[in-house]
């Protein structure tokens, strides 16, 4: 059963068609890759899925629920977490607060409970503290948990963004160019991390990535975008052989 389904999704910006009737089915528990040249509409696709732009046309179904009309935070609360291509952390919050603030908002103590320190609030505080510490530990950031996010190195910031996305216990995780700016050993670690997240947390991962080696190695299914259209979809071997893909993308890069 697909966890996420896109039916004829299009997105226009003042006459420019950034996405052109995209159909996509992302299977439960899979690692799904989206590739394509710059400006193909990959990040726009993520923005449409996460409710930053409502799609001009088409239907988005997440776990049997239409999400196209929902605002960004509602999509997040339903269980879609994401990272950003250009890292967007809460720079002047500590590492641990970056993660804690993202923990499940569905059942959160209200304003009065927080002000008065009611039991529901204290319980929530200690739970989210434990969970956040565990996530930060998993990302190897425990020693830096009290530092400001802005003082972390680039690679650490990328990992913190993943930890933050996981804090809300999503069932679908969107990673926007997670390997950007990493060297090859960091990329290997990242691949292990992505597998580990998928297996430990039983979630589905949708990722946009330029690094072909990484995509071909970890993705079970790949869709190729070009000028806002989906030009191919299949497993890594099929994609490598697809003539249109080679012509428009792979051929240029290799």
């Amino acid at each position, binding site marked *: 059963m697909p966890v996420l389904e896109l039916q004829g999704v299009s997105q226009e*910006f003042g006459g420019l068609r950034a996405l052109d009737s995209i159909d996509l089915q992302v299977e439960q528990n899979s690692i799904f890759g989206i590739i394509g040249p710059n400006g193909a509409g990959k990040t726009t696709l993520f923005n449409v899925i996460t409710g*930053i732009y409502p799609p001009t046309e088409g239907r988005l179904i997440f776990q049997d629920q239409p999400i196209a009309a929902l605002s960004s935070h509602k999509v997040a609360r339903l269980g879609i977490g994401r990272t*950003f291509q250009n890292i967007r952390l809460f720079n002047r919050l500590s590492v641990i607060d970056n993660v804690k603030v993202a923990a499940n908002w569905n059942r959160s103590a209200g304003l009065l409970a927080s002000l008065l320190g009611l039991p529901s609030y204290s319980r929530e505080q200690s739970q989210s503290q434990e969970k956040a510490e565990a996530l930060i530990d998993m990302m190897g950031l425990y020693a830096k948990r009290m530092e400001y996010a802005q003082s972390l190195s680039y690679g650490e910031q990328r990992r913190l963004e993943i930890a933050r996305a996981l804090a809300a216990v999503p069932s679908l995780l969107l990673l926007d160019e997670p390997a950007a700016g990493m060297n090859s050993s960091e990329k290997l670690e990242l691949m292990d991390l992505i597998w580990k997240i998928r297996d430990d947390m039983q979630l589905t991962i949708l990722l946009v990535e330029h690094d072909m080696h990484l995509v071909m190695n970890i993705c079970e299914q790949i869709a190729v975008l070009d000028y806002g259209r989906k030009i191919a979809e299949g497993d890594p071997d099929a994609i490598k052989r697809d003539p249109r893909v080679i012509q428009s993308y792979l051929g240029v890069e290799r």
Partner: protein
Amino acid sequence: MLWQQLLNGLTLGSTYALIALGYTMVYGIVQLINFAHGEIYMVGAFVGLFLVITWDVNLGIAMVGAMAVCMVLGVLVERIAYRPLRGKSSRLSPLISALGASIFLSTLMALIAGVNTRRYPAVVDLSSYSLGPIQVSSMQVVILLVSAGLMIGLQFLVRRTRIGKAMRACSQDLDAAALMGINVNRVISYTFAIGSALAAAGGVMVGVYYNAVWPYMGTMAGLKAFAAAVLGGIGSIPGAMLGGLTLGIMEIMGVAYISSSFKDAIAFGILILVLILRPQGILGEKKNKKV
């Protein structure tokens, strides 16, 4: 009555438009509300007054002198209060710095010239002519003609000259313009200089027209002119002109037909409504947020 109010509104509106142009040009390029712009206008009015009193010059020379002084002042304010902040801190910092510059300038003028309202000696003959049912004063003619002339000049500058093209390039995309070899700092200085000169011309003319110049005259005029710029669509030069005229006419009409005691509230009421209903203004373009 209606035509008379329309003429008065048009006169007031063209002075708003002159100030609004400075706001909109600066905003178009550096996305900053230059709060000190109203004070530049006030300084312009005082420099004009000073020239008229000290050397008994005519209105034209007083205006040119005020424009020259304010060009320098505008560039200085940008150098001292805005440039050190550009591109390195949050959006809030330059705004607060601008506010500081504005308070500094008006208080400084209050210390130099005193807080009392000064009057212009008669520089133009204040007779008025009857044109059918309406009375036209010679100062109104001067304001309308000079404003129109300056705005046409500005259009020519922005459309036809090299620096104008550089300005338009910078307002499209500052980083890309810099990569194309445009000296961005120079363009920004020019923008501040031109905007300040227009405001100074407005200041002198308003000082003569209402026969009143005081150190805090820039605050309200500046806020209203900014309202006009937003009304027309901030970043758009024709928008600032249109917004200024619209605001001037609406304010005069409001005073004439509703109540004069709510004069200052009318401009802001309109502004808030516009921002809520059509945040991009009359002529502004809607922008998609970048992610």
